[in-house]
């Protein structure tokens, strides 16, 4: 079947992809990357530990936000890929690969497992999809828990750190968490600026219009699901390295999905910045209320529910709508060439 595009004049319009001051953004981003890379040598150990957990959650939440905020898929089973990523790292490490090298392979393993899973899950919509993701996570956890090589239900330590000193192990663990977060955020940002990003935004806004504009909605969704599986797998891998111990009840804990969901909702669904800001609030709350047990989660959950009902664009979304500021612009600005 042939398409014959109408004759149109070329170079009608010029396109700009950045807003006001990309220079400043770049300088700030560069400085931040520098400081965060040097964090183990700059900050006290306790803060570095907090940062590590922060980066693990940021990676997961960014992936969850990509699925829910752009493709409308509310997964409460992303812990499946966190767990599979962790256990994949354990497996590769047991087979003699360095755990650090295993990170990308673990992510890839998760992506491969996600492919057949989409064919099953995509038969369901809305809430049924959500709970089915959970069934998948539950099933994966049970199966992993019965494998003797992985230590069954009690888990086992991740090997492969014998050549390093304790300080090195801690620093490398931090750097792994940080680099995975950096790659996930930068990758998500670049993805959203790409053709696929435009497609996802259109699906987010109106699925029917998107289809009739030629968007292959299901395959876009599938791509996102697979990417999110890989991203959460990488997060699970660095979680395993940080511990360094894997256990079904920790890696496959639904608490991960809850935290991903809460931070994305509070920060703002459908924005790159939202989950990061949500995570900052989450850890600020956790640190300041840490002597009060689970109260920080109760407060944070209530805050998330409140925001979902009364401020569905989230804190960053509301802020951006009001002040028209974009730290990480993904849009297109046109200027006609005729004038």
């Amino acid at each position, binding site marked *: 079947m042939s398409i014959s595009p109408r004759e149109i004049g070329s170079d009608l319009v010029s396109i700009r992809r950045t807003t006001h001051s990309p220079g400043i953004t770049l300088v700030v981003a560069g400085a931040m990357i520098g400081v965060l890379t040097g964090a183990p040598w700059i900050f006290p150990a306790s803060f570095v530990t907090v940062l590590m957990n922060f980066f693990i959650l940021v990676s997961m939440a960014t992936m969850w936000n990509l699925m829910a905020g752009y493709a409308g898929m509310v997964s409460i089973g992303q812990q499946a890929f966190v767990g599979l990523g962790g256990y994949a790292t354990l497996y590769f490490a047991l087979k003699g690969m360095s755990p650090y090298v295993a990170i990308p392979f673990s992510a890839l393993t998760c992506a491969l497992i996600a492919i057949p899973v989409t064919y099953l899950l995509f*038969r*369901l919509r809305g809430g049924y999809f959500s709970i089915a993701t959970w069934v998948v996570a539950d*099933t994966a956890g049970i199966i992993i828990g019965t494998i003797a090589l992985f230590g069954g239900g009690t888990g086992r330590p991740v090997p492969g750190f014998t050549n390093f000193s304790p300080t090195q192990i801690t620093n490398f663990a931090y750097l792994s968490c940080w680099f995975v977060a950096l790659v996930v955020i930068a990758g998500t940002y670049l993805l959203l600026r790409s053709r696929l990003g435009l497609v996802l935004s259109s699906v987010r806004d109106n699925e029917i219009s998107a289809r009739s504009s030629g968007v292959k909605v299901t395959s876009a969704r599938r791509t996102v699901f697979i990417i999110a599986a890989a991203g959460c797998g990488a997060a699970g891998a660095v979680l395993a390295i940080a511990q360094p111990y894997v256990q079904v009840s920790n890696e496959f804990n*639904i608490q991960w999905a809850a935290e991903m969901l809460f931070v994305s*909702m509070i920060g703002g669904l459908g924005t790159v910045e939202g989950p990061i800001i949500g995570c900052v609030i989450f850890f600020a709350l956790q640190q300041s209320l840490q002597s009060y*047990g689970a109260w920080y989660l109760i407060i944070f959950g209530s805050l998330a529910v409140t925001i979902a009902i009364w401020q569905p664009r989230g804190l960053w979304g509301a802020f951006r709508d009001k002040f028209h500021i974009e730290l990480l612009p993904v849009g297109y600005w046109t200027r006609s060439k005729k004038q």
Partner: protein
Amino acid sequence: MIWFNLIIQGILVGGFYALFACGLSLMFGVMRVINLAHGDMAVVAGYVAVMLTPHFHIPMLWSFLVVVPLFGLVGYLVQRTLIQKSIDRDPFTTLLVTFGLSVVIENALLQLYTANAQTISIGSILYKSWHPASIIYISYQSLVVLAIAVVVLASLQLFLSKTGTGRQIRAVADDQEAAQLSGTNYRHIFGVAAAISFATVALAGIAYGMTTQFAPTSGGINLLFAFEAVVIGGIGSLWGTLVGGIALGIAQQIGSHINPQYTLLGGNVLFLIVLAIRPQGLFGKKSSL
């Protein structure tokens, strides 16, 4: 004979799952809301029963007389406030809100009652069982729970088909606008459906507490069972839910027979197979998905 026992045990536990699931199914049918905090409400009911009975000097067995109506009221109020607000936004929000609620409830329970397991001890004849044949045993307790489930489902069915309010509930589920044009206040009916849902799950929660130990985090797994029963049986069919619950129970028994670790896996596998082959469930219509 072993297989016969597996099926018997499956049926017994299946009744319990159906009791758990019917409220979930009703709320989805009437207002298209999947209450992800459904399982947690059962656990809360268990805790309320444990907490209340010493104060009221009533036997644990009769705690449901207080707890079930109380949960009906709570259900009505939660629906008219939080859930209705999120329905007014969109289906997406109802998922986020009920999941948020679920996590908040679990952690609140953890904070208040620690992670220690609780039981509702009834210390009576119900702990005995009946052995009609050598390896078949039927616990009276499970039999009672199954009987309660069947009675609840039958009453619900009767209520929905024979009473004015019941027909209003079905009318709202069929066509919300047309129901309003017939004088139905759909928001009130949503509240009534939620009240029934909460009341039945409270009953299920107490039954659960009498059968086994429970902890603040037990809600999740029970929601999973309820959901699996609903999907296997077919969305929107009450008796389908019972059949789904029984099928789930049998699948779990078969799993546990192969390896005790595979109990839950058996149910999940059946669920995934149904999903792959017949996503509308055994008794569901295709359009309801």
